[in-house]
């Protein structure tokens, strides 16, 4: 659970955020929306630990947030999220190598084989099987973002922070990666906070949509009044990670094995009776 308590962020004289208070439940998928320059990304940087709040506190699972980024919070940016000098496999392995070997930051022997197996599983999971030996420059934009997701998820972070991760992608590719994102959110123990410009994206993926806005936006007031939360909308009917809702099946949510809402017989776990 993330508790944000009365956070202000100022750069010199300029107030960017003011009076931001917010509680994010475990396994929520929060979409942050709002016009450009309203502090969405600044707020994400606060959660990430890249920036520190001028006033107020942020508490993650009962402990104050560390003042620098760490492995409990994964991140995917719009660009530059993957390392150009490492192959797909190398990119996904990097976190494991950091974890296992403090000085050489490399894995050898059986530990390396295990890590490669895990990484390959994750690479297949995000739909990049077969591209393990390619460099990011050889991948399309959508594939690079899939890689960035796999790279972040191998550390099994508690919180995944997304900064307009799909903003630069074509609509078709974006729809595909939405399906993937939703599946990952359902299957892993993740709380997701996503900054987006795309309202449709916010409402298809999120459990909760939060709007940032500057209440006073006249040029002479701009500097002295920061943005704050203006809307906090829970999606109805509520979505919950990994829980299927028999009344309103979500297109990309978990599927019903059997039941009235299915018009095709799903394969039973014991195998086909006939």
């Amino acid at each position, binding site marked *: 659970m993330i508790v944000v308590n009365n956070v202000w962020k100022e750069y010199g004289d300029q107030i960017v955020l003011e009076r931001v208070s917010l509680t994010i439940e475990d396994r929520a998928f929060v979409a942050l929306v709002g016009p450009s320059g309203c502090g969405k990304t600044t707020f994400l940087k606060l959660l990430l630990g890249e920036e520190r709040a001028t006033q107020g506190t942020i508490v993650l699972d009962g402990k104050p947030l560390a003042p620098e980024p760490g492995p409990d919070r994964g991140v995917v940016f719009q660009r530059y999220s993957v390392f*150009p000098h490492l192959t797909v496999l190398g990119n996904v392995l990097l976190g494991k190598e950091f974890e296992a070997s403090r000085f050489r930051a490399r894995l050898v022997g059986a530990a390396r084989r295990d890590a490669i197996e895990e990484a390959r599983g994750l690479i297949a999971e995000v739909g990049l099987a077969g591209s393990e030996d390619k460099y990011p420059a050889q991948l399309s934009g959508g594939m690079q973002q899939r890689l960035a997701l796999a790279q972040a998820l191998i*550390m099994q972070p508690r919180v995944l922070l997304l900064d307009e991760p799909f903003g630069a992608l074509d609509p078709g590719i974006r729809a595909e990666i939405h399906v993937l994102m939703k599946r990952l959110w359902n299957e892993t123990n993740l709380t997701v906070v996503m900054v987006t410009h795309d309202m449709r994206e916010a409402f298809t993926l999120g459990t909760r949509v939060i709007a940032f806005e500057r209440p006073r936006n006249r040029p002479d007031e701009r500097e002295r009044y920061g943005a704050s939360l203006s809307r906090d909308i829970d999606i109805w009917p509520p979505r919950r990670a990994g829980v299927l809702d028999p009344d309103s099946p979500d297109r990309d949510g978990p599927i019903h094995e059997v039941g009235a809402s299915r018009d095709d017989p799903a394969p039973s776990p014991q195998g086909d009776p006939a």
Partner: protein
Amino acid sequence: MRLINLKPSRTNQLILALLPFLALLLAYALGSTARLAENPSDKLLPALSSIADAVNRLAFVPDPRTGEYLLWSDTLASLGRLCSALGISTLIALVFGMVVGMFPYARALLAPFFAAVSMVPPLALLPILFIVMGLGETSKITLIVIGVAPIMIRDLALKVMELPREQTVKAETLGGNSWQIALRVVLPQILPRLLTCLRLQLGPAWLFLIAAEAISADSGLGYRIFLVRRYLSMDVIFPYVIWITLLAVLTNVLIDLVRIRVFPWSELDKAS
């Protein structure tokens, strides 16, 4: 068709590339013939045949006094100095470039110092080096290092700072500490740039080498050129200059090939 849209074919490109060299050679031959016709003992533009003689004498006939093949012993002496100096500079640049580029405290401490040091004209320091270190190899190598390393440090530090902030943050969220990030994220991305930087410093390095050899040495390409200058031996100076140029050009190409071979991603990245 507009001139800006006319592109030569591959063969034409090759021919065009060779043309200026051939023109230079032709101009020399014509000038030399004209001068020699007027005065057969002219030393300023020796005939191509006497240059060929000199090359033969220097490269394939042992020197009667020392028994050495002068061109090769000179080349070896010069390249030895150049390589050790460039090796030391590269190492210094790598360490300090990364430290200055990565750590804000180190940057605050060292960046202004390196900026000032890189403005000192190295040749003005040469007398000091000769006084302090004597006339041996150390002072020559030190001169090249002083001339080349500060610029390489600044270039690399800038390159480190140009790495997107997102990459460092991402590496931190993957659990990397400063040392691990230096080793696995920054260093590999800097190495290709280090090679490019080394390539660009070849010119200045040769300059300092020849300046040092001209003043004090007993072998080396620069030493030989300044030695035979006393006898107006243009037939030796010309081939030596061409040989030095050739060595520099070859090293340049070689370093770039090594970069593409060892860091294939650096070429991919450039294209995208």
